């Protein structure tokens, strides 16, 4: 097996190169002095200046973040409540909800999107920030429920009963016994919801109204002509996501290693 080591490593390196090539390309060209996307003519920060000066661009960042934050908060709370209710419900109700939740998860995004668009138009609801936010909450909740359900299945039913025997109200049992035990599921559900909302294009594209763009719909609308400020915007997103990921993953890893070292020392 050993002799294949070099080949394996080269293959993985190639795949990583494929994944990061466009990202590096965008970062490099965000500092380009000219408009060109093919030749690098010199270093400049002009596209960053243009980005910060562009109101629609800054607004798209604002809407993306604010919608992701609200949609995550609402869908996490709602999803947790529904999941807990489901774990105590009749099997038939549980199956019906699971099947219905599968619709937006298994249907192509574009079908969910036009369904909502037709729904809003049938009810004469004008599209805009409200419909965009509502759409995001609608497709995030099933993912939150999906991440929490397995944790609830592992939960010992007797614990909540025991808490109530010891004088807890049902609400206290929920808050002090059930929630802490499914916390991991809630956190991963919230992360999935945030990523789905932050990354979404198709559903946003069909449910937003005039003047309200998130980053995805903004980029889609501007790519008809070459706009190097989009490179600057992309670079900012790349840096933000990388920073968040490093904080979320590398720090716990380091802490654990330090703990291990302390134990051995």
């Amino acid at each position: 097996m050993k002799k294949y080591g070099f080949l394996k490593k080269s293959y993985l390196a190639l795949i990583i190169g494929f994944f990061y090539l466009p990202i590096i390309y965008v970062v490099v060209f965000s500092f380009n002095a000219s408009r060109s996307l093919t030749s690098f003519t010199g270093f400049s920060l002009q596209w960053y200046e243009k980005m910060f000066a562009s109101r629609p661009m800054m607004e798209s960042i604002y809407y993306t973040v604010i919608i992701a934050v609200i949609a995550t908060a609402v869908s996490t709370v709602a999803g947790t409540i529904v999941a807990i209710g489901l774990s105590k419900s009749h099997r038939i109700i549980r199956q019906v909800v699971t099947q219905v939740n599968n619709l937006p998860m298994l249907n192509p995004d574009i079908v969910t999107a036009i369904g909502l668009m037709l729904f809003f138009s049938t009810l004469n609801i004008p599209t805009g920030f409200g419909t965009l936010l509502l759409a995001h909450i609608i497709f995030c909740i099933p993912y939150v429920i999906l991440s929490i359900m397995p944790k609830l299945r592992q939960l010992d039913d007797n614990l909540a009963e025991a808490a109530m025997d010891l004088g807890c109200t049902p609400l206290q049992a929920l808050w002090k016994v059930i929630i802490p035990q499914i916390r991991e599921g809630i956190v991963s559900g919230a992360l999935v919801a945030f990523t789905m909302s932050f990354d979404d294009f198709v559903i946003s594209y069909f449910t937003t109204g005039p003047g309200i763009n998130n980053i995805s719909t903004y980029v889609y609308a501007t790519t008809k002509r070459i706009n190097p400020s989009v490179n600057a915007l992309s670079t900012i997103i790349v840096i933000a996501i990388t920073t968040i990921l490093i904080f979320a993953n590398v720090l716990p890893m380091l802490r654990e290693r330090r703990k291990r070292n302390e134990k051995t020392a």
Partner: protein
Amino acid sequence: MKSFRRLVYPYLIWAGVLIVLPMLIIVFYAFSTEGNDVIPVKITLENFVRFFSDTIFIEVLGRSLKLAVITTIVCILLGYPAAYFISQLKPDSQSVMVLIVTLPQLINMLVRTYAWRGILLNIDIAPELKVYIGMVYNFLPYMILQIYTSLSKMDPSLVPAAHDLGCDDRMAFLKVTLPLSVPGIISGITLVFLPAVSSFFIPKLLGGGSYVLVGNLIENYFVTTGDWNFGSAISLIMTIVILISMYFTKKFDYDQEAA
């Protein structure tokens, strides 16, 4: 504890109105056309007849399926070795590699596709090939992560056991590792094939206007021409085609497990 059951009731209404009803509205639109002043809507099969009697629409559907199938196959061929090699690394390196594969996925899909546009402007190849590169790029991480998950769940003593029983490396892989990773491949297929059939911004951004897929058709009928009835019919046809393909994939998985 039964009182917690009541927590579900509001969601039943929510899901009925906001998830199920919109799907029914699509079906309604698909089976109707705008009528005249006296009868505002006409229930009809016209939209479906229109779709299936025009070779252009069939061609577009075929092209979308071909794109999705080839993308899925290329993702399996490229992704399987990658996932397999990752699963053989040291545990610490495995988590770092998973992180490296996940990171580009978290960057907005539109932004990633836009990034390829710049690179592909330098290369003189058919627009179709550019679309394929963009599709594989966007979906490969899903495939790698799914296959890796099923490989990492495998009992590590199984392969040495196969060796003890006289298998060589190749046999051990074909008889033990590969069958056990089929569930990962299947869920990878679901995550790649489904969105690939309906994708419309990758072809639009990378293929120029010339490469029309079923997703682009739906977008056109909803956004540009405003013919929602025909657009709904196309979506319904696409959904049914996807359901049929997924049924066969699942059936294959089931037969494999039974064998």
